């Protein structure tokens, strides 16, 4: 029976993704600008520690937190993207569509650039206090926009209008950022641009105390929306006729996506592309529209792709790390184009 074929295909795809994720996790911990032998790494993962203090420090304070950041951020953005694509019934939607990333950018711009304007404090950004301030500013900006969107969502009946509002918020934020840049010193603009390029390695363990719980809550929350998302595939009218409370479901979806996107953007910068691309890859891979498959699938594939990009960005030879945003887009865009081309051929 065809139904059985589809089921075994899904199992196979999940198994494949699981292995891929595991491999990428190991690669993320073992590869980097400092060579650490595999035997040492496996011993370290097994909890036996290492005699070499420097290696131990690199693993514990740099590679391990960075791996966790990429893992969770990838999963979070992919889930956010899938939810937005379903809610707005638009394949171009991504987690940033609500204007949350722009809000975060605005928060950062205000702190970085206006500090510069009012006192030339750009050196502040480089200090660890500065990094925390930036995260905090991004957090305030992102959640500020999120609450505004949620407030408007209660007033607006129509999803398309909400989408337009989100995009407008994005434009307005960019405009203000542009103005701030116009009046800022070069060094400050560079600090802002560096934030905008994104990074997975700014999260130390104390920040993980906020980052991890927020994302875990959001990811678990998304599991509770599976039924609503499936019904919303048919559009709002059918969904409400099938017993769905549209406003409540929409609020749930916005809160979860908002929480995930705002948290990731606050700590890692606006990571482009992942949230838009991963759902498309999963739909192509699993050949289903069922969110009880797609939600876990995008989590695993999103995490894998983020980890993969992180490995590339850190390849030995690149001094330090490449901006993650450039890597995600450069690697991801061709993948998505190829998926879309392949799909078009199939449907002909």
């Amino acid at each position: 029976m065809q139904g059985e074929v589809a089921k075994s295909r899904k199992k196979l795809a999940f198994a494949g993704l699981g292995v891929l994720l595991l491999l990428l996790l190991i690669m993320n911990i073992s590869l980097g600008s400092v060579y650490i032998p595999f035997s040492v790494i496996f011993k370290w993962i097994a909890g036996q520690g290492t005699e070499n203090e420097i290696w131990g420090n690199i693993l514990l304070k740099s590679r391990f937190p960075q791996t966790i950041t990429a893992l969770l951020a990838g999963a979070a953005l992919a889930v956010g993207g899938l939810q937005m694509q379903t809610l707005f019934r638009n394949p171009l939607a991504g987690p940033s569509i609500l204007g949350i990333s722009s809000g975060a950018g605005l928060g950062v711009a205000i702190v970085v650039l206006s500090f510069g304007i009012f006192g030339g404090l750009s050196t502040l950004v480089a200090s660890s206090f500065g990094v925390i301030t930036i995260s905090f500013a991004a957090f305030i900006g992102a959640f500020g926009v999120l609450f505004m969107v949620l407030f408007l969502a209660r007033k607006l009946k129509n999803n398309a209008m909400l989408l337009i509002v989100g995009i407008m918020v994005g434009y307005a934020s960019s405009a203000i950022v542009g103005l701030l840049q116009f009046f800022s010193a070069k060094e400050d603009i560079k600090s802002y641009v560096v934030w905008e390029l994104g990074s997975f390695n700014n999260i130390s363990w104390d920040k993980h105390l906020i980052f991890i719980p927020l994302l875990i809550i959001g990811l678990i929350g998304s599991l509770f929306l599976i039924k609503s998302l499936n019904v919303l595939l048919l559009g709002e009218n059918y969904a409400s006729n099938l017993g769905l409370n549209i406003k409540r479901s929409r609020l749930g979806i916005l809160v979860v996506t908002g929480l995930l996107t705002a948290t990731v953007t606050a700590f890692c910068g606006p990571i482009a592309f992942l949230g838009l691309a991963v759902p498309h890859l999963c739909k192509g891979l699993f050949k289903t529209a069922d969110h009880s498959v797609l939600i876990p699938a995008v989590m695993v594939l999103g995490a894998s792709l983020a980890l993969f990009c992180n490995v590339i960005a850190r390849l030995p030879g690149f001094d330090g790390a490449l901006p993650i945003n450039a890597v995600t887009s450069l690697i991801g865009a061709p993948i998505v184009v190829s998926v879309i081309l392949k799909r078009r051929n199939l449907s002909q």
Partner: protein
Amino acid sequence: MMKELLKVNQLSVGYNSGSAPLHSNINVEVLEGEFICLLGPNGAGKSTLIKTLSGFLQPIHGTVLYGEQDLNTLPESQISKMVSVVLTDRIQIQNLTVFELVALGRTPYTGFFGKLTPDDVQLVHKAIDEVGLKGYTYKTIDKMSDGERQKAMIAKALVQETPFIILDEPTAFLDLPAKLEIMQLLKRLSCEKKRGILLSTHDLEMALQIADKIWLLAQGKELKVGIPEDLILSNDFKTFFEREGVVFDNNSGSFKYHRINSKPVALEGDSVASKWVGRALYRLGYNPVSDSCEYKINVVSNGDNLYSFYENDKLMIECNKIQTLMEKVVETY
């Protein structure tokens, strides 16, 4: 005595509760197993009425009762078990199979994660079978024709297990055979499963043949309800649909192009062929009559030349193709 499924009291419908309603004073009811067609010209407010009855629009005034319960006081979860809908929204979802689509109809009954029980699965298969999509169960809907997709939506409405089903122009995108198929399917479901079915359509002739009752709606007129035959004889169809150049023929129950200056041609013969000759004459602007007049066409059922055309009893042409005959008629008259 058939059970009353839906009762509408003093209903006023419209999009904006501030402005004047589109239609007021609507009083109708629907019985178990009744098949009702809602007819009306474009812009009559059919969709508005349908949206109000499905619970998508608030009534401006009056009540919509499903059984004993007022639609407006019910939460979505209750409405979903009273009325199911098939809308004009075209469903284009990548990778969604017929099974998955129909299974969504079980949503009001499934648990928190929407997981189907074995009973649900069986119901879904049965419904897919009933609408004639058995071989399509695991096909994705983006690779199906409009008619097949519409059948899948009807199966979705079936597994929702509501006593009442509302369909907004279910045959709008379909070709004629598919239209007939869908209408017959719906009629059968209303008879066999005792569901009340209300559908809006522009296919007047089909509705006249198949509907148990017809609701007529037009801008500025009150809703008219009756069985098709009564509505024709009371000239309601004429008053609702006729406009300049369009005439409703009470004899055939269909529309005709109205010719103001049609020339009479006597038509003799009572075979099927003579009926089609009459159609051809009408199409070309002549009026086929049974009285004798200057021009005459005779149709016989066999022989070499089936059709003969006379001008003042003088034979003009004999032939066995209506096309040749008509060319001669147009040439001489």
